[in-house]
């Protein structure tokens, strides 16, 4: 569904992604693992074209994305939930959802506001509140719901467990499983291996912008040295 081939991405002069390639297949949940600074967020941004890779190809459902503006990538069916959430704090919950609203797509599950309120009941209670008056966990829910309003075929979740209470992280894991059952393809980036193992089918580990591992969690278990070398457990 998504194929990233040999991309190189830079922040200014800093070479962040180095010849990175991977694929995401329809219907699976893939976890992108690695330490802080390993290039996880940069990978997400490079797929989304919020950062344009200087070399390499990003293909989504047969379409080359490199050089497209971010809004067109979103229109192709990729939903992006940024690491720092970036909800619109001056807008109400309902208005935040409205910004994300896009027409129905053939190739992706369709979400109505009501369905999303069923998955995230807290949001319904706070629907008229402004974003700035919400806790971190609620903001995280809102940012996911907002992206789902765009009916994406592939969801990119950047560090969904970062900075929220462990108890909310557990809820988040349930939510991601629900999304998968609805037929959504998901790619999450994570530092928390336990969380990743709980939700994902496959792990990709990167370090210094290079891929170090790509396989099932069972394979990863079999090679504790990989885990010790590249993950902070």
């Amino acid at each position: 569904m998504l194929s990233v081939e040999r991309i190189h991405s830079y922040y200014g002069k800093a070479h962040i992604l180095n010849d990175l390639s991977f694929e995401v297949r329809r219907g699976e949940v893939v976890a992108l693992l690695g330490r802080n600074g390993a290039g996880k967020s940069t990978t997400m941004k490079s797929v989304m074209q919020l950062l344009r890779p200087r070399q390499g190809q990003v293909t989504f459902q047969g379409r080359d994305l490199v050089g497209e503006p971010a809004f067109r990538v979103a229109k192709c069916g990729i939903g992006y939930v940024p690491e720092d959430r970036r909800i619109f704090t001056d807008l109400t919950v309902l208005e935040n959802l409205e910004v994300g609203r896009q027409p129905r797509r053939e190739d992706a599950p369709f979400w109505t506001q009501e369905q999303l309120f069923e998955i995230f009941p807290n949001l319904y209670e706070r629907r008229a509140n402004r974003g700035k008056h919400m806790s971190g966990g609620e903001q995280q829910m809102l940012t996911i719901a907002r992206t789902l309003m765009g009916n994406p075929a592939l969801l990119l979740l950047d560090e969904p467990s970062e900075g929220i209470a462990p108890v909310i992280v557990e809820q988040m894991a349930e939510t991601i499983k629900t999304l998968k059952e609805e037929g959504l393809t998901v790619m999450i980036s994570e530092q928390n291996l336990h969380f990743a193992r709980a939700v994902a089918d496959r792990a990709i580990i990167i370090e210094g912008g290079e891929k170090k591992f790509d396989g099932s969690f069972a394979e990863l278990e079999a090679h504790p040295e990989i885990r010790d070398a590249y993950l902070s457990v």
Partner: protein
Amino acid sequence: MSEILRVENLRKSYDGFLAVNGVSFAVAKGELKALIGPNGAGKSTCFNMLMGQLKPSAGEVYLDGQRITGKRPREIWRRGVGRTFQITGTYQSMSVIENVQMALMSHHKRIFSIAPRAWKLYRDEAMGFLDTVSMADQADRPCSVLAYGDLKRLELAIALCHRPRLLLMDEPTAGMAPSARIELMQLVADIVRDQGVSVLFTEHDMDVVFAHAHHIMVLNRGELIADGSATEVRNNPQVQEVYLGGGTLFKEDANA
């Protein structure tokens, strides 16, 4: 009087929303104390009120018995409180050592002098502080090229220039590699031990918190729900419910 900081019933509301709701606690002299809690629980708001960036809606803050509630940041600094920021605040257009020299110029009340060349002032003294945080070898690099962890250490050196009695550190290890986190917190622990400084810090990395803090406080929805030793806090059922969770997804095993 073994308390360096005492906070009484601190409150902050933003148009009707209670960000911090009646928080009281104390930090003892020579103590390394952590303030944890979910995002949006009010940790940063609390910190900003302690340091004077925000005025509390109600409540009092005492530093070593003196009331400092609502005073400006530089006034609180003058009385001996240093701070580091969650997102580092260094002077990007200066070299590493000039950042420290700047803090020393302020310490020596030379801000308004226009005669001397600034880069010649207090260079040796600044080098001493850089040495404390193991940054002496990078003294003349431009600040803008430093790695994130080094910026954090530089900030610590800046905060030490005024010989603070209390250090407030907002997420000192956020954004750092795990090995660097341990190094930095070890450095802070050494400073606490050697210089008798007290430290209050917020943190998301539970490994860091449980490994280094003498005492831990937990904030949730603007209220303090626990204040005690690591074991007490870990076994507190309310803390488990709202913050630590069942522990299934929490990498606690690392320091057990």
